[in-house]
């Protein structure tokens, strides 16, 4: 299957290089790959490249390139899946996948590769089997401790802080030293949704798509059975109906192969015995029929005086979330026509910022409360702009005033309405500490485009 496997940093420095078959012919394959990648013409895809007698397939993960070479005509899906799985495994073992963690854990990575692949054939990628063979410990930059949180509750008292873990809590290595029992047994469950929306210039909704995943990262010893309960009224497919209301609906669902589904039909409960590490329990998608209104609506109005070259864009952003929710890190990216010279702005709130960069306007709103309306007025000078002829100031958008794209995060909110009701562990693992269960719901935008 695979001839060589290597990991390059984002600048092309080789971090890991493993030759399984010895058929590189004495050439520096990693160097070859990077040169080919950077020299590729724009319309060719870099995913699979060919040079001499070998194919290079790679994925980009956290800024790193994970590359496999092969000289046979094998399935691209299997190979891409293998690379993704390797990325996940390395992330599990080293805490997170980045240039720093890889360079600190080179020995561990090579040991992993030795066990996972033999002469280029996949032996196993399951955490279960691997933990019997891997001896090296992961090196972390600083040991993680919940005491790092700024305010620590008194012994036994449950303060607000101890209910919240920083988002980096899950990014520690999974298999630390076997004798260390003081590490907390924890399990992190994320319901993450990606929202893609396309709105036409007249305000009509062209496309809405939600891709959701339920991801589990378990630090519990494997074999602990857990049950995840989802919203009972959650229906799959267009014809099903449960409960009394319109219900929460998804179009399609797919599960990881190790999930037991006996109770899914009746009570929407998933049972599984997850191995340590990361696992995607369930994937679902929903199109065209969101139960809740779209989180953002944009009302742009454009005034363009061709004679004087003055372009005025007034953007009104309305957030349609429920009043208690908020959106974080909202950024609106609006490409501008070529040759925009200056920008003057009037924004409706103090913490917002807007700036001109790389031919586009970037408007940052760190926090938007549900139900609120924010606006910004931007005036620019665009000398010499081509477009539909006409002397009078027109309201049609000049060429190059591109579609506005929004990126944002919606914490504690799922667009489809799916929620995890409970997460129960069937039996207590050995060790006295009560395992901590962290459940998080999060939606973020994948491609939220509004045409102007």
């Amino acid at each position, binding site marked *: 299957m695979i001839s060589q496997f290597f990991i390059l940093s984002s600048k092309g420095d080789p971090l890991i290089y493993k030759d399984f078959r010895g058929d590189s012919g004495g050439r520096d394959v990693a160097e070859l790959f990077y040169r080919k990648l950077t020299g590729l013409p724009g319309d060719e895809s870099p995913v699979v490249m060919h040079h001499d007698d070998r194919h290079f397939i790679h994925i*980009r993960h956290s800024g790193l390139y994970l590359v496999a070479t092969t000289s046979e005509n094998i*399935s691209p899906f299997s190979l891409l899946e293998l690379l993704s799985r390797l990325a996940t495994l390395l992330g599990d073992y080293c805490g997170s996948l980045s240039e720093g963690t890889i360079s600190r854990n080179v020995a561990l990575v090579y040991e992993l590769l030795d066990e996972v692949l033999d002469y280029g054939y996949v032996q196993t990628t399951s955490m279960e089997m691997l933990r019997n063979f891997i001896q090296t410990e992961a090196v972390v930059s600083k040991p993680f401790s919940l005491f790092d949180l700024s305010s620590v509750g008194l012994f036994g008292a449950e303060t607000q802080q101890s209910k919240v873990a920083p988002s980096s809590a899950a990014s520690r290595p999974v298999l630390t030293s076997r004798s260390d029992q003081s590490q907390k047994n924890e399990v992190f469950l994320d319901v993450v949704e990606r929202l893609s929306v396309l709105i036409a210039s007249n305000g009509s909704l062209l496309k809405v*798509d939600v891709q959701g995943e339920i991801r589990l990262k378990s630090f519990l010893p494997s074999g602990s059975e857990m049950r995840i309960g989802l919203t009972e009224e959650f229906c799959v497919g267009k014809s099903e109906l449960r409960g009394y209301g319109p219900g929460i609906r998804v179009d399609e669902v797919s599960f990881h192969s190790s999930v037991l589904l006996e109770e899914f039909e009746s009570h929407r409960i998933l049972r599984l015995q997850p191995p340590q590490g990361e696992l995607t329990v369930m994937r679902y998608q929903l199109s065209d029929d969101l139960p809740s209104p779209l989180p953002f609506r944009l009302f742009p109005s454009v005034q363009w005086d061709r004679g004087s070259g003055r372009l005025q864009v007034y953007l009104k952003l309305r957030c349609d979330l429920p009043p208690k929710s908020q959106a974080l890190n909202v950024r609106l990216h609006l490409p501008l026509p070529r040759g925009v010279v200056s920008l003057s702005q009037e924004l409706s709130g103090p913490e917002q910022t807007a700036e001109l960069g790389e031919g586009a306007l970037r408007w940052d709103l760190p926090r938007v409360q549900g139900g609120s309306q924010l606006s910004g007025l931007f005036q620019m000078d665009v000398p010499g702009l081509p477009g539909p002829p006409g002397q009078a100031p027109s309201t049609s958008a000049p060429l190059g005033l591109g579609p506005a794209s929004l990126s944002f995060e919606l914490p504690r909110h799922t667009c489809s309405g799916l929620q995890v009701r409970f997460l129960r562990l069937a039996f207590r693992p050995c060790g006295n500490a009560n395992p901590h269960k962290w459940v998080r719901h999060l939606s973020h935008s994948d491609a939220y485009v509004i045409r102007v």
Partner: protein
Amino acid sequence: MPYLGSEDVVKELKKALCNPHVQADRLRYRNVIQRVIRMPKLDQWGQAEVLNFLLRYQPRSEEELFDILNLLDSFLKSSSPGVVMGATKLFLILAKKFPHVQTDVLVQVKGPLLAACSSESRELCFAALCHVRQILHSLPGHFSSHYKKFFCSYSEPHYIKLQKVEVLCELVNDENVQQVLEELRGYCTDVSADFAQAAIFAIGGIARTYTDQCVQILTELLGLRQEHITTVVVQTFRDLVWLCPQCTEAVCQALPGCEENIQDSEGKQALIWLLGVHGERIPNAPYVLEDFVENVKSETFPAVKMELLTALLRLFLSRPAECQDMLGRLLHYCIEEEKDMAVRDRGLFYYRLLLAGIDEVKRILCSPKSDPSLGLLEDQAERPVNSWASDFNTLVPVYGKARWATISKYQGAERRGPELPNTASFATPGPLIPEESKETVQELPDSEVLMLVPSCQLTAEDFEKTWFSLKVAHQQVFPWRGAIHPDTLQMALQVVNIQTIAMSRAGAHPWKAYLCAQDDTGCLFLTELLLEPESSEMQISVKQNEPRTETLNSFISVLETVLGTIGDIKS
């Protein structure tokens, strides 16, 4: 060996698939296969490997086939994309004779494929899109209701957007054409010029079936007066009027005014061609061409000048009064002052044609203005699934058929070939006789080195006579792929002093050649090369007028070297 769950499984599988005796015993083979398929404990890599192995199995009865397909059904719903695609490919190949089963499978795999197309991983998305395009070649309506999933998103990398635009172009049908065209129209004004041009070409592709709407959109785009848009629109118009003559009127009305916005060679050629062929319907055609003629001295592209000559002559036939003068000036420039020989030749040709009389000119230049049947020929008629089933789930759809052909040719040559040997060493190949037997071959001291003399002058009749009088001394086959280039072969043989007495034309079926060579001792080698149509081997028959095995072997090796080298350098 891939790890398939346990040692026993591996042993059984090896036994089942490698041992010919086991294969002969139908019942045992079937049991083994079934046991393997029922392995629930395999992980996704083991399952993918098993599915790959099973591609080699030929079910012997319909019942067996459907049994296996039923067992494999669960793999189609696996969460691992590698397993799903492997199972799909196996279905497609096993059910070769049952197109409705193949269609069923493709319906079942629609869901996973679409999910992969919207996956977070761009690379997976790209691989899935390539396979979607593959499926659309056979089932154009398959994804039509899901066209929205193929709308391009702003942040996607360029190569994914290009694939999506191609898919959109191919899944158009009556219900979604309006929305798809609107979406593509939006892309035509994209900031990236490459992407905009790709979208315009896609609209051109759709225009073959939905001509009116597309021509309207393209005309609107001309109104934007953007250089990169105008040139591609004009090129699209040129291709369109050839295939869909009904839109000529609309195109002619849209053209005036776009000459100001075109600077590149392709666009100019397209515009000039249109003006030449349809100039009688475009009022200001002569004046536009006059502009080009005025500036012909500063025109850098010879292709544009050639196109200009032809177009002006055509227009002259329909509007002689307006064009006569500038035609004269253009011909004068091309013949007297032009440095590019191709342009000059064409100018001369037209001049002489004009001298021959206007009727001659009309006869030669008035070709049909459109050929709608070409569109039907060109249109990828729905290809049967079996033509690409074996390429599914491999790297072939990811590269595309054209690129794969060059890659596999390159790979084949690499594996076979040494580099082109030095011509000096052609006539003196390495010794064929092993070292130990050199002592025994005392009577022919220079037998290891074959010296072919260039002066083998044998007439055709002599050759024929000698050929029929001798018996075949040596016959062998030589692997050969592709077409023969007789001239190249003849020249290469000449270098090693092998004369060609007779050779078939390129492309003749069967292809034959007769060669003659003589070595310095006077021994003649008469050779026949025969290539049957559709064969991958060339038959070589050699006759020698003196029975000398060593020189014969040397000659064969020289011939093989030449043929091998020619085989590698195919244009």
